[in-house]
């Protein structure tokens, strides 16, 4: 590397020597890798197309389904696997050609990538001279890589949203949106065959929304007071040692998989709620909204407490000092100064928790009921949007029946509601943080 000896030769390199190395390596690898990727993606189709081209006229003009089967057989034979149907000359011939093409393709690929690597390296080599801004070039490429990585998440999200949206639109072509949004009767069973007895299905989602709301409300009734009081205690009253123990414990609670909460709800809490209700002379379903809501509330406590804790800690200590300096007790300081000041942040946190509760699935699948039930009685079984999505899609389904498409419509509703809650919640939390910066 004669050029890299720059300083010794009295000419200053624009960039550190390493950057010229990176630059060369990128030129050597990137084009070759791109070709490799493309090749691997396209190769199977190309080969199949070539093999089909070589088939006799009769086979080539088979309907798509049978041709597919034939190609499958050729591929299996080529790989030496079992073949359905008899093996004739045409088939073996095609299989041999298939193998030939494969080997050829590998060879071309090897030559192509190595050649491109060498070519890239030599182009890079030629471009390198002391004034060349290798550092800037390398950074540009790194920037492109970073943008590509971050757009994966964004485009996936957009893709999912669009697909849910289009499927939901297809659903609304079969079932009017007004029936879905305002109908009081949910029974998604549809007749699969024309001669089958059975309902034509009714898709009034109101019982699902009320069920979701009921369970969410019970969960928030548990999580908000408990979480808030936990946060107040930890932020203002506890000694550093208690805080050091309690905070990690809460994080453990937050880290328990929801499926564990789910069977805890179904196997422990639900029977307990039923027995407790019975001993008080109340009629309690074995899958009551109360049981699911209670456990969901416990699951959300850490979320509420940690967001409230953040909000309380974000209140400047000058407020605390000001209140104490006027002769307030600790609880007066808390209730009259700190909590009002932290309230927007706490409200934002609660909205995020509500959105979490609405979208929660595992607990309600295991502990809430399946029957859509329009009721506000927490002792009865209700079902939620997420539970219905799961039941609609579990098992064998016809892909364009209203029943299956209903899941997409429900998913869209869920997505819109939680998105709105999240946007409001995050905005409130952020505004509130800015207020004290």
């Amino acid at each position, binding site marked *: 590397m004669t050029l890299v000896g720059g300083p010794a030769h009295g000419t200053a390199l624009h960039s550190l020597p390493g950057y010229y190395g990176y630059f060369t390596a990128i030129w050597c690898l990137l084009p070759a890798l791109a070709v490799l990727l493309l090749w691997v993606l396209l190769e199977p189709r190309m080969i199949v197309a070539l093999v089909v081209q070589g088939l006799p006229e009769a086979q080539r003009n088979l309907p798509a389904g049978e041709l597919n089967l034939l190609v499958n057989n050729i591929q299996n034979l080529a790989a030496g696997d079992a073949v359905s149907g008899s093996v004739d000359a045409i088939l073996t011939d095609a299989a041999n050609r298939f193998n030939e093409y494969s080997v050829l393709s590998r060879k071309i690929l090897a030559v192509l990538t190595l050649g491109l690597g060498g070519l890239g390296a030599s182009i890079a080599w030629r471009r390198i001279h002391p004034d060349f801004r290798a550092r800037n070039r390398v950074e540009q490429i790194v920037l492109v890589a970073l943008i590509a990585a971050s757009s994966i998440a964004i485009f996936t999200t957009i893709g999912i949203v669009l697909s849910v949206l289009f499927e939901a639109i297809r659903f609304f072509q079969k079932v009017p949106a007004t029936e879905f949004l305002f109908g009081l009767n949910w029974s998604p069973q549809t007749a699969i065959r024309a001669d089958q007895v059975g309902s034509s299905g009714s898709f009034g989602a109101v019982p699902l929304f009320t069920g979701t709301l009921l369970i969410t409300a019970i969960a928030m009734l548990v999580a908000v007071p408990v979480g808030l009081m936990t946060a107040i205690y930890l932020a203002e009253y506890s000694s550093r040692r208690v805080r050091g123990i309690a905070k990690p414990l809460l994080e453990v609670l937050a880290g328990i998989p929801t499926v564990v909460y789910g069977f805890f709800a179904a196997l422990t809490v639900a029977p307990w709620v039923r027995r407790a209700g019975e001993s008080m002379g109340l009629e309690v379903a074995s899958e009551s909204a109360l049981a699911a809501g209670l456990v969901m509330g416990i699951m959300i406590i850490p979320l509420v407490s940690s967001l409230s804790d953040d909000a309380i800690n974000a209140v*400047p200590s*000058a*407020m605390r*000092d000001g*209140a*104490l*300096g006027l*002769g307030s007790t600790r609880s007066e300081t808390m209730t009259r100064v700190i909590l009002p000041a932290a309230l927007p942040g706490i409200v934002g946190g609660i909205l995020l928790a509500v959105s979490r509760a609405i979208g929660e699935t595992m607990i309600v699948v295991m502990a809430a009921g399946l029957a859509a039930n329009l009721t506000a009685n927490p002792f009865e079984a209700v079902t939620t949007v997420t539970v219905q999505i799961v039941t609609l899609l579990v098992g064998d389904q016809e892909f364009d029946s209203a029943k299956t498409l209903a899941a997409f419509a429900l998913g869209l509703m869920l997505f819109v509601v939680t998105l709105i809650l999240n946007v409001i919640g995050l905005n409130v939390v952020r505004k509130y943080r800015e207020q004290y910066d």
Partner: protein
Amino acid sequence: MRMAHMTEPTVTENDVMAAQPDVDVADLGDSGRDVSSIAVDLPEQLTELGTTVGEVRCEDPYVVAEKVNVHYGDNHAIQNVTLEISKKEVIALIGPSGCGKSTFLRCLNRMNDSIESARVTGQITLGGQDIYSKEFDPVALRARVGMVFQKPNPFPKSIYDNVAYGPRIHGLANDRAELDDIVHRSLERAGLLKEVIDRLDEPGTGLSGGQQQRLCIARTIAVNPEVILMDEPCSALDPIATARIEDLMDELAEDYAIVIVTHSMQQAARVSKRVAYFHLGLLVEVDETDTIFTNPRHKLTEDYITGRIG
């Protein structure tokens, strides 16, 4: 942080001197002069540390600190400080950053209680009562010894509610009319009433910095304290707002004992009757303001007021 009743100070004067044989140059700010060497050069002035020169006692003392020591963990932040403050005077605490002025100030209303590592020993009395004794309620103390902080810290409430906060929690007003009266009088005394009379229900945080600080002063005098502590109350304000607060202090001095921490010599000279100079946790010199600024008795005091110690 609790102070044992009438305990002997844990550190004797000799200990203090032993603990401070060579002054750490790094702590003396940007001038970075070696104070001990200056001290050796000028034998006619008092140079030793550990005893306070000047007059720590005063006529008719109301707040009396006797041999007060404060430790933050291992950091001995206030060492054996004795100081008397009378009922109707303004006393200024001056000294380089980190010398313990705020710490000493916070001892006087027990705000150090909320700092976990802080430990206060010695004795402080207010009107003859030991404020660190078990029977003394720190919450009630803070209603009698109010505090104004360095950065204006109005609550995120309306102007009215800011001032009404103290009277409300202490039950000073029997009805709305009385509360209105207290709020108006306090704002008037703090020189803020004219500016805010039309917008008492707007948030206090919307005022300018100087107005916010006067709001905090109004909030403090609304609970009718006997002593007002001010920790660099003007350091976040512009010169005009500062001048207004200094005028205000002159007026307040007629009714309250005021202890003010300041970094500005001019401010100390303008508002205070006496000045106490702190250095590395020691109270070096206490004197009449005129004496301190024209004829300081301690070499360190002179160095500080002439700007040789930053």
